[in-house]
């Protein structure tokens, strides 16, 4: 009888999978690359992810997505887009495992044509990666290399990358522990760029709590701070000495702090030997009591490109003189917003005559 046959098949299927379940651990124990994994790749992947070849019409076929799976170096190097095709010890992060285990109707599944890999095959590969992706003596095709900075952007460097690269050259990064709980946990500390030893420090939403005393918490970091955002925090001229001890500052934001012209003058005109803020490119003093006298030492900062002195006691004459002395320095002194729209202009469309 048809129905009972189907039922029987059902029962048998269940029994078989039970057997498989119990049998699985021993059968799939410690897959080795050469005998367990490579045959799967060879049969299912190498056609597209192998060496360059000519197809039947004589056209050159390169490895798809720049990914070759026929050599140890190639596998670890990954594809054009990602180096995480195989992440030794972490199958879940490995794109290879992610793509072969997609639902069968997914347009991204690998292999894209033909039968998907069986559960046993996926399990073999997963297990091999999870246990460290040991290739044994297998090398396969030569070539390919493991990129140094996984996930790093390609293409030309931006000017910012060049600047920070230069300033941070040879600097040892601080220990992670030193970056924890800085300034009583109020500081947000991060690398200026991924992998850079230089730091960016900001105090978002804690401005009022950051006093001169709290800022002393930056002392151990002072050689590494390159971007310091102190906008609106409760510091005074007292903190300028600490800021002066930061030789790698590239961007410094002091807007709407109690920092004053005399304070800047006193800090920036020490004995002639001291070279202060030689890397500083951007200095924001908007809303401070910066005065004309302070522009004199500021004018000498060799790399300064952006100076913000809007809403300060600085006079137009002094800022014009500064512009003249340093034509390439961009000085923002006044907020030149467009004049308000003439009355009536905003009430409905203007009509054209004729």
């Amino acid at each position, binding site marked *: 009888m048809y*129905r009972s046959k*189907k*039922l029987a098949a*059902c029962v048998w299927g269940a029994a078989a999978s039970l057997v498989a379940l119990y049998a699985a651990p021993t059968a799939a124990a410690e897959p080795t690359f050469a005998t367990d994994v490579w045959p799967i790749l060879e049969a299912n992947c190498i056609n597209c992810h192998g060496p360059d070849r000519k197809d039947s019409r004589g056209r050159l076929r390169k490895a798809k997505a720049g990914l070759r799976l026929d050599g140890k170096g190639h596998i670890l190097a990954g594809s054009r*887009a*990602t180096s995480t095709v195989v*992440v030794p010890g*972490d*199958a*879940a*992060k490995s*794109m290879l495992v*992610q793509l072969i*285990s*997609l*639902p069968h109707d*997914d347009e*991204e599944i690998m292999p894209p044509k033909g039968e998907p890999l069986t559960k046993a095959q*996926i399990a073999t590969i997963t297990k091999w990666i999870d246990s460290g992706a040991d290739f044994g003596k297998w090398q396969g095709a030569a070539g390919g290399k493991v990129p140094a900075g*996984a*996930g*790093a*952007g390609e*293409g030309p*460097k*931006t*000017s*910012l*990358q060049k600047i920070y690269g230069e300033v941070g050259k040879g600097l040892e990064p601080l220990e992670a522990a030193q970056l924890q709980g800085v300034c009583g946990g109020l500081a947000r500390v991060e690398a200026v*760029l*991924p992998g850079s030893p230089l730091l960016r420090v*900001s105090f*978002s*939403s804690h401005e*009022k709590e950051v006093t001169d005393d709290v800022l002393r918490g930056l002392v151990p970091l002072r050689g590494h701070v390159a971007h310091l955002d102190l906008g609106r925090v409760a510091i005074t001229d007292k903190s300028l000495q600490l800021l002066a001890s930061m030789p790698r500052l590239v*961007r410094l*934001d002091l*807007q709407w702090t109690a920092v004053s012209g005399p304070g800047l003058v006193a800090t920036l005109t020490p004995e002639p030997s001291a070279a202060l803020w030689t890397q500083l490119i*951007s200095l*924001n003093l*908007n809303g401070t009591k910066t005065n004309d006298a302070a522009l004199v030492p500021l004018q000498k900062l060799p790399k300064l490109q*952006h100076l*913000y002195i*809007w809403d300060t006691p600085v006079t137009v004459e002094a800022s014009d003189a500064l512009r003249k002395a340093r034509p390439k320095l961009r000085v*923002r002194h*006044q*907020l*030149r*917003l*467009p*004049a*308000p*729209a003439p009355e009536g*202009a*905003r009430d*409905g*469309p*203007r*009509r*054209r005559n004729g």
Partner: protein
Amino acid sequence: MNNDEILRPADSVTRRSFMHGAARTLLGLGTMPLLSRLALAADGTAVASAPVLGPATARNVIYLYMSGGMSQIDTFDPKPGADTQGPTGAIGTNVDGIQLSEHFPLLAKQMDKVALINSMTSNQGAHAQGRYLLHTSYELRGTIQHPSFGAWLNKFGGRNNPTLPGHVAIGGSGSITSRGFFESEFAPLPIGDPTKGLAHSQLAKGVDDKTIDRRLARLKKMNAAFRKKFNNDKVKAYDDIYDEAVKLMRSSDLAAFDISQEPDAVRDAYGRDRFGQGCLLARRLVEHDVRFVEVVLDGWDTHNENFEAMEDKCPVLDRALTSLLVDLDTRGLLEETLVVVATEFGRTPEIKIDRNGRDHFPKAFSALLAGGGVRGGMRWGKTDPSGNEVIDDPVSVQDLNATIGSALGLPLDHTVFSPSGRPFTVAHKGKPVRGIFA
């Protein structure tokens, strides 16, 4: 007897299981997403790895969305002398070789801060589809809601201000920008009227902080059993919304939402219309480290009387955008804030004579970027003298999003899996236009 009857459980529906079922269907609390995700995790597919951020030149984005399809010829890609130009004139700018339409006299003086993209191209010529593609980089599908760009940014980059939302949408309908399949914390905070600020963010009369704390504690207690039983994303989403709201209500940065604190002269400069005031609010929010603010200006769908509409619409954009750029620049915010002006498609160079209008035209249109490491005073890509074809360096919608993403250091190749186990990337394999960065 058929298989269904064999598989049906022997016990009948109990009252308790009926209640569970009712809660699931009536409250939309499905347990399936969690179950299916666990299953996938066991297969090793749905487990997301941590994204590796790349070098960023920008930290925040102000995204000005021109809804309806902005005419490129009447704005950023004029074709003086061509039949397609119509009555709109062209003017020179403070950058040699770059012209704008005559409706942008203010912006013309700030073009040294701007990178124009005149070679935008899309394959979506209908509003809903085009808008969706622009915001998500994916085509509109019935089966999934993709996250929009602001959600991706916060998902990968995190918030910079812990007490304010990382993603705010000003004007326009909430459906334009969306968290998609990401967690509720990545949803945009919608602001309808920028002059009203954040509605309902004050405590009710007669309720103090203590009372609120007590009430919230009681609520948590009452919900505990339910949460334990339905320990899934949707229930968590409700909790998160409460937590977020309380955090926001108590934020010392709440004043960021109050544009009445701005001097009248500044408010006038931006324009006393919804969009202008929205741009001003966006500046205040970015100043407080909100990472992604979208401001919508609609009314660009000019099938009829295009030229009259341009005289009306363009000055609003000109004034608000120029004020925004000048204001950000003076405050030092433009160094790390990327300003984007984008639209879902352009409009036909050909003028529809009978109605003096222009129709949808996804083949060639324009966008604008400024700040955030973008090199100013440049133009990327080119259309032919009639404006009908992109002839140099085409930029797809995905490419535009990849460009924004790369400015923010987002990993364009990092795959995120939807709850159904499908792989997605920010900008959907778009290629960043690296040439526009300094």
